[in-house]
């Protein structure tokens, strides 16, 4: 990555971090309901991969830890936050919530809340690309625990069999909800699991964005060149619990501190300072600017936006009736 790109990505990652921390606060204030799965600690994964891909052009799909992936694809942070607030201006018009952010205008095909559910959906998106003949690829971001679902294997088999243009990114954060990978999974290194399907795979540090970017570039090139699927495992860590009611009793504070020593944002910041591309004062100003933007625009927009109308409760269950009349009534032209 060029130095200007790195500075831009640092700015984005700071936004991603502060956005998520602000969600936490809003949840405590009961502005956000339901489940809330936060991303701090894993920012280099989404950012590194998407820098190597084409956000807004390639199709991205993921699980319920989805706010940052949506924003990285081009979703407006205001609309993502408004969705968490359950507002009509939210990206899914308040019908989805934290786990179901969608922004199809930017080809972010959604967050899904059944672990492993997006695997075959991603393969299907890739199948559609294959049929239509575009140069896009499908990128499926999921956690390590998703690989213990049956559809993981079903999808890997089909993706390899039909050479589908799909990149599977495994963000291995070592825990599936509150169970460590050693206690749930016979093979800890997830990239080894796709060897059975002849899918090329790679594993790397998911905390260092330069490393993620380099590995992702090769992975993306492989898929875009029409060579079929690729599986990229990124070793990472989520700082917060799985969701909000998680006191993290299943792991030690020492382990958490060890991972925080290799914070993806601070590592990139220090690298830029060492290279003379920015100063600590620049970074502090960036944090302040980001917080001000979140408060004055993102939160303000979400607070002031209207609730959905109760009269619209059943809107979006089916396609707009007027557009479907020939098939509903049999009176086709």
């Amino acid at each position: 990555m060029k130095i200007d790109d790195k500075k831009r990505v640092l700015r984005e990652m700071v936004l991603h971090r502060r956005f998520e921390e602000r969600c936490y606060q809003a949840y405590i204030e009961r502005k956000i309901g339901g489940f809330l799965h936060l991303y701090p600690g894993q920012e280099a994964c989404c950012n590194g991969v998407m820098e190597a891909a084409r956000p807004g052009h390639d199709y991205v799909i993921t699980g319920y830890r989805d706010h940052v992936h949506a924003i990285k694809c081009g979703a407006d942070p205001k609309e993502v936050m408004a969705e968490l607030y359950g507002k009509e201006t939210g990206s899914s018009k308040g019908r989805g919530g934290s786990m179901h952010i969608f922004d199809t205008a930017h080809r972010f095909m959604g967050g899904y809340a059944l672990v492993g559910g997006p695997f075959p959906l991603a393969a299907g998106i890739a199948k559609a690309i294959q049929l239509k003949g575009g140069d896009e690829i499908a990128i499926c971001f999921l956690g390590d625990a998703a690989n213990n679902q049956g559809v993981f294997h079903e999808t890997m088999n089909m993706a390899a069999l039909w050479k589908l243009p799909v990149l599977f990114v495994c963000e291995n954060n070592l825990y599936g909800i509150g169970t460590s990978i050693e206690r749930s999974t016979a093979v800890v290194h997830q990239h080894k699991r796709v060897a059975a399907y002849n899918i090329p795979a790679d594993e790397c540090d998911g905390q260092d964005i330069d490393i993620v970017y380099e590995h992702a570039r090769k992975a993306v090139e492989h898929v875009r060149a029409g060579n079929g699927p690729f599986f990229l495992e990124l070793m990472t860590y989520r700082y917060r619990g799985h969701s909000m009611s998680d006191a993290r009793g299943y792991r030690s504070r020492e382990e958490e501190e060890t991972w925080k020593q290799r914070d993806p944002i601070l590592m990139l910041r220090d690298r830029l300072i060492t290279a003379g591309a920015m100063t600590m004062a620049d970074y502090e100003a960036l944090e302040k600017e980001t917080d001000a933007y979140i408060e004055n625009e993102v939160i303000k927009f979400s607070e002031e936006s209207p609730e959905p109308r109760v009269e619209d409760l059943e809107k979006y269950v089916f396609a707009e009736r007027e557009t479907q009349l020939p098939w509903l009534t049999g009176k086709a032209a």
Partner: protein
Amino acid sequence: MANIMYWEAIQRAHDEEMARDPLVICMGEDIGVAGGTYKATKGLYEKYGPLRVMDTPISEGGFSGLAVGASFLGVRPIVEIMSVNFAWLAMDQMFNSAAKVRYMSGGQLTAPCVFRSAGGAAHQLGAQHSARMEKVFMGIAGLRVVTPSNPKQAYGLLKSAIRSDDPVFINEHELMYNMKGEVPDGEYFHPLEGSDIARAGTDVTLLGYNISVHWCLKAAEILDKQYGISAEVVDLYSLSPLDRAGIKKSVSKTHRAVVAEEDEAPVGVGSEVIAIINEECFFELDAAPVRVHSALVPQPYNHTLEKAAIPDHEDVVKAVLKLFGKA
């Protein structure tokens, strides 16, 4: 009008729609090179090739999800699930992805997929190949459920389902693929909503769907000839949504109702239809509505036990006679 078989009608709908739109594809187990377990995709592999007629691995959850994902980009997949019993494995994707995605994305994404499956009990296929599961599908918001009782419906419902922007589940029947019937020569779209009057009558309404329409028709003939009872047969080809207006209209006319289903009774088509009758026209009733249904047992293998578990036209006749105090 051509007199063709149920499977031929389904095959024709596939062929016409695939010829019209290159984004219409079909997939399932043995549907391509092998020609389809029920021949419903016969000849399509040779005509449209492996990219559009996909022989899938035996991975119902996987290929159903793949179809849903492809539909997000405007592809119109027709998925054959060889037996409805296997649909349990596909339900996560059908229900959690296809049926909900439009709502949870605030209308941004839609999943115009068609899932076809052979339902019903055939002959001695045992507990895991004989289930009737329409009750499971018909309670899912965002999913349309239709079930053809004849070749004309099989053709026209599939045509409409492919064109519809909503996901549609089509419940077919293992024993009906070779049934013959008239299908229009020209293109025909059967409505996805509503019901058909399969036989007009005045004294009692017999409500059936799929194979039980035929029990009702046979029962109506017996009732007419032997007992002088005029039965109206309502064909509920749309199980979701059910045709409230059609049910009300017929029952308000005859004042009596029998619902016949091959499924077991609890939480089924019969319970739902009778609830609708209560809500729509309770005070029109001259007698309490009756359900005809299967025994609540895993389907037995033994021929005699199997026959005892599943109702037929005689059970419908008995139910009607009981309603009239003649049993």
